[in-house]
């Protein structure tokens, strides 16, 4: 360790109580800053990775709506899907029809159901059992993939059967259509809240269950552009918007922008609290180093009298600020990760949030940049007291120290 570092370390060790408090203060400020950076960047990145889970960069929804933001559906779905699939720039299209089906005789009255094409679906990943076929026979039990919540709440297991019904008439107490369903697989659904029971059935069979008016309808379709860069995706989106006037095509970037608008409160809160954390860190180091320098005027005057250059004194005082900030930031990194997990646990309770969505996401680049900013800010906080220390009038300070 160099002489300068040894002196700086000795100065900090001379007052352990104040040093510990300062390091603790900087650690809390660093933790808060880290959390706020994770909050500001986490939502965006988490949502992006959620949307791109299965590679689909585009969502096609009823005109003027976001996917599953209303009960509106798209008519003429077959023709629209066929037109999209005919475009060589689109490699895959996954249509989905969402609805609520009644569950006669079960613990809960209805289940959110997705009608999907199994070979192109991007809504779930199978975790146990068998996947559903593209379509089932007209009389055979409908194969269904359900989530864990569904199995827990119904008390059913894979292989069990139950009846689903649609077209409920409350006055006649009848269902217009019903089918026996066999639970073939358990899946993890990306876009459905973990606490919501959900069932996936073959799309044609869901349309049949819902009746003639749904025979050619879908709620949303996901499309994958052949080229994944934003310019190509935007070109495909623009083509869909031009050729399909009854739908709205949304790219991942647009969806992220719209969600960011809705959640801008959290981003701005993160910015304000992050700025306050930086300010607290700066003030703590500045106050501590200033008082430390005032206490050691005599000592600094002696150093100057025995030949230490102004630059040497300046660097030593700056080193004190650097050491304080460094120690605080190291502690703050661990504290920040723990508090981020705690805060994320709180916000994950938001109703209707997809299970895979996180508010606080560790982004190494953003986190290191923010902590480096705090380190620089803390080090620079010592600049003014360091300059004052280096400019101490040697003779007067020595005399004042000797006389007391």
């Amino acid at each position: 360790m160099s002489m300068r570092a040894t002196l700086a370390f000795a100065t900090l060790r001379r007052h352990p109580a104040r040093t510990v408090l300062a390091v603790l203060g900087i650690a809390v400020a660093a933790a808060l800053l880290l959390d706020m950076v994770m909050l500001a960047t986490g939502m965006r990145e988490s949502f992006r990775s959620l949307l791109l889970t299965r590679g689909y960069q585009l969502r096609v929804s009823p005109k003027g709506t976001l996917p599953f933001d209303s009960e509106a559906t798209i008519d003429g779905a077959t023709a629209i899907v066929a037109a999209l699939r005919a475009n060589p720039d689109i490699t895959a299209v996954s249509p989905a029809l969402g609805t609520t089906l009644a569950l006669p005789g079960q613990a809960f009255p209805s289940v959110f159901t997705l009608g999907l094409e199994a070979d192109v679906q991007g809504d779930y990943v199978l975790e146990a059992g068998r996947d559903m076929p593209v379509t089932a026979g007209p009389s055979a039990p409908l194969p269904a993939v359900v989530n864990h919540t569904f199995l827990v709440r119904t008390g059913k297991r894979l292989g069990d059967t139950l009846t689903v019904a649609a077209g409920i008439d409350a006055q006649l107490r009848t269902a217009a259509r019903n089918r026996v369903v066999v639970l073939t697989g358990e899946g993890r659904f990306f876009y459905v809240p973990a606490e919501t029971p959900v069932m996936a059935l073959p799309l044609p069979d869901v349309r049949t269950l819902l009746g003639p008016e749904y025979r050619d309808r879908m709620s949303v379709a996901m499309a994958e552009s052949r080229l994944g860069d934003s310019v190509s995706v935007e070109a495909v989106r623009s083509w869909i918007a031009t050729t399909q006037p009854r739908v709205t095509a949304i790219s991942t970037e647009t969806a992220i922008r719209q969600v960011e608008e809705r959640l801008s409160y959290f981003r701005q809160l993160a910015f304000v609290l992050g700025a306050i954390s930086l300010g607290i860190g700066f003030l703590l180091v500045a106050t501590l180093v200033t008082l430390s320098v005032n206490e050691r005027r005599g000592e600094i005057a002696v150093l100057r009298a025995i030949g230490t250059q102004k630059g040497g004194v300046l660097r030593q005082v700056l080193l004190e600020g650097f050491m304080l900030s460094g120690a605080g930031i190291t502690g703050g990194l661990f504290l920040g990760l723990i508090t981020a997990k705690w805060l994320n646990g709180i916000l994950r309770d938001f109703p209707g949030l997809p299970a895979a969505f996180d508010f606080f996401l560790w982004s190494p680049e953003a986190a290191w940049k923010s902590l480096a900013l705090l380190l620089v800010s803390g080090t620079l906080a010592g600049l003014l007291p360091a300059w004052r220390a280096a400019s101490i009038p040697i003779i007067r300070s020595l005399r004042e120290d000797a006389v007391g």
Partner: protein
Amino acid sequence: MTRWFSPLVVGAALLAMPGHSLEAQGDSSLAPTYGRRAPAVRGIAIDARMAEDFGLATGSIVTLSGKPGERGDSVAVAAVFERKADPAEVARREYRIRTHLDHLQTLLDLDDRVDRFAVGVADNVPVDSAVARINHVAFGFRAHRSADVAVQSSRTFRVVERFHRAIGLITVVASAVFLLCLLLLSVEERRRDIAALRLMGISQGTIVRSIVIEAAVVSVIGSIIGAGIGWISSLIVNAHFQQVYRTPLLFALLTPEIFAFATLTSLALGIAAGAAAAWRLVRTPPLTLLGR
């Protein structure tokens, strides 16, 4: 993402048709029309945000359809309503219209269907027994107590409230450490003064009390200044977010309870820090404090 139980939202293609206007009808056109012939042009009510964005006013004629691209019905804007300051809707930028129930059912081809209806029970009927009786005969629907619905729909705000409390706790810890550090430093800086007082014969108790009083005064003054900064910040925050979300909702509020909590916390921390620092100094021999 999934909002299947949300109230019906009309996938409405709305087109303002300037040049046509009806007499202003106020809210009366939305009143029930029992025993009267329905007017040829139905009235709708639109929210103020929509009226402002589309340049609509009472009497404007617009086209309303249930599906994009369809011809739809010509309807008159009969009323413009202000939306409630509802936190649940604050981030949603959609427009709202209100129509007669039968009008919407016709537009959406929903024959005699509703999403929900409210039931008022007589004063002498317990709500729970009414709910139980309805659910006993219900087929394809369920009755819920309004209180339960309110609890469910307020879950978002309870999560936000818990998050704010957690952030508040972290901020209080950070502020407490900062305050303790500053008071400790400010007391320790006066080692020579305290040594001189001790040498003059001032008792340890008197010195501790004076430092504690000083710390308390500094804490209270700091709290008042902090509250002032907080109040100004809340004005800026409210002005900004009210403009961003176009809502009269208050996002930040400085209440007497919050001010009292902040001041008392600061006072307690100040007194504790002042007492701890003063006690450490008065126990040190005066000559040691003077560096002799």
